């Protein structure tokens, strides 16, 4: 089995993003960028599948600016065998990402696309489902447990009602939820080794995709901050106030 793992470069999850002065974007200058956390989980799962002998090769792919090379090098250091960077300066919305992934998947003939359920920048939660729809193959979204059994996957999904298990036939798309695994930390020697792993960089345009319909982004703004209130000193003071406000 060959596994394709899409990796998105996003502002690190520990950093609180700020809207820029023109209100037409978010400040990224000097801001720490990382692999989208859900994509690290997807990558960890792919590596574990290879370590268990279920997969032969794990290929990381990203669509993004040239400096996304940093995140792909990290993916290689974590354990991906090789990486592909489709460079573009434009913002990549899910319909475009899905089409690019569809093309790369076909080129590599990958059996499984294992990706994040959501990018923590746009919070769209769309790309995997769109890819599966365009490809006309199964999707197992929000996966917290994954097992392989003779050409099929059993995926346990975190849904509002609890845990749902479905079986999907390969080839398929799986999107990772937080509890699928705990991604390994990268060690120094791995970073050195990753430098020698293949990273193929080419312009996104080389895929000759027709541009899908996109959303036009009109503005960005900071939401009104929730003002902290006050403290109470005791439980009886708390209960009095809750009663006074009519919530209990």
């Amino acid at each position, binding site marked *: 089995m060959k596994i394709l793992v899409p990796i998105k470069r996003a502002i690190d999850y520990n950093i609180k993003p700020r809207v820029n002065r023109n209100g037409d974007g978010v400040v990224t200058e000097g801001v720490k960028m990382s692999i989208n956390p859900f994509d690290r989980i997807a990558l960890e799962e792919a590596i574990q599948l290879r370590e268990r002998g279920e997969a032969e090769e794990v290929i990381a792919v990203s669509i993004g600016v040239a400096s996304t090379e940093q995140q792909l090098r990290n993916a290689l250091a974590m354990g991906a065998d090789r990486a592909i960077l489709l460079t573009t300066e434009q913002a990549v919305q899910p319909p475009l990402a899905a089409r690019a992934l569809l093309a790369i998947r076909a080129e590599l003939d990958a059996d499984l696309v294992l990706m994040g359920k959501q990018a923590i920048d746009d*919070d769209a939660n769309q790309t995997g*489902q769109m890819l599966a729809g365009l490809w006309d193959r199964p999707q197992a979204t929000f996966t917290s447990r994954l097992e392989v059994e003779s050409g099929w996957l059993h995926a346990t999904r975190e849904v509002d009602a609890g845990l749902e298990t479905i079986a999907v036939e390969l080839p398929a798309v799986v999107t990772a939820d937080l509890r699928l695994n705990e991604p390994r930390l990268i060690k120094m020697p791995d970073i050195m080794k990753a430098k020698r792993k293949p990273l193929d960089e080419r312009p996104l345009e080389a895929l000759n995709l027709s541009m899908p319909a996109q959303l036009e982004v009109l503005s960005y703004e900071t939401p009104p901050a*929730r003002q902290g209130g006050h403290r109470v000193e005791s439980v009886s003071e708390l209960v009095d106030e809750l009663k006074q406000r009519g919530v209990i």
Partner: protein
Amino acid sequence: MGRTLIIAEHDGLNLNAATGKTLTAALAIDQPVDIAVLAADADAVAQAAASLKGVETVFRVERPENEHPLAAMLAPQIADLAARYSHLLMPSTTYGKDVLPRVAALLEAPQVSDVMDVIDAHTFRRPIYAGNVLTTVKAPTDCPVVATIRPASFAEAEAGGNATIEAWQSDQTLPTHTRFEQLHSAQSDRPDLQSAKRVVSGGRGVGSAENFDVIFRIAERLDAAVGASRAAVDAGYVSNELQVGQTGKIVAPSLYLCFGISGAIQHLTGIKDANLIVAVNKDPEAPIFEVADIGLVGDLFEVIPELEAALSQ
């Protein structure tokens, strides 16, 4: 003039409250609204949908394959039905999040996720970066508008409707590559988290699954739903469907009372729509106090018994 189609969310018997909230968002677009119920037997849910005010037609889309909500089965039928519509909406619950982008791909349309404000028929406001930024986006006018609606941002639909109920069938061959196996729900007699008027939550500070009993006890006293932080779920204190936050549920109760939760931004995303946030934490510096309307510094194991005693008076 355009027309809006909503895909109902249900468990086979009951219409989920998120569908009604999606209707409220749809009515803000100011054009006729229909609802489709995809199920093996859609009778009860279709009746409930037809009684919501402002709905013109409810479609029963019945096939044995529709018994479980599998995106690969539902999406081709929805795409078929949606061909006649300018707008297609689902709630941004795990059901809508799973199904709708697949439909959007089939319709070659982009999707607007988590609509929190309808500005006009094509312009919407939505949160990004875990709600730390809001963005206003415009959907193209030469393809259907496909959007998920953030239930916490819209009021419940009104009753008193009298829609026509019609059957609709798509004769598509559905795939065999996806099979439902099972659904495991932790049984609980507490109210539903996403529509509850009061929510009591616990975090890592609660310390263990056994200790979580005190959270359930106080919730019962207050007739509240129970929620949890990711750390509490990860540690196995409670099951995943209780997680509140960026990757859990978004709640919008009139009272959110939380114990032993530090207030990470990913958790706060899920509680911003609460009317009143009350936090109990033993660390006076905990970030939760920066957003809580009422804060009490203290040990939850001392506070909860006192609170129970005070409430039973």
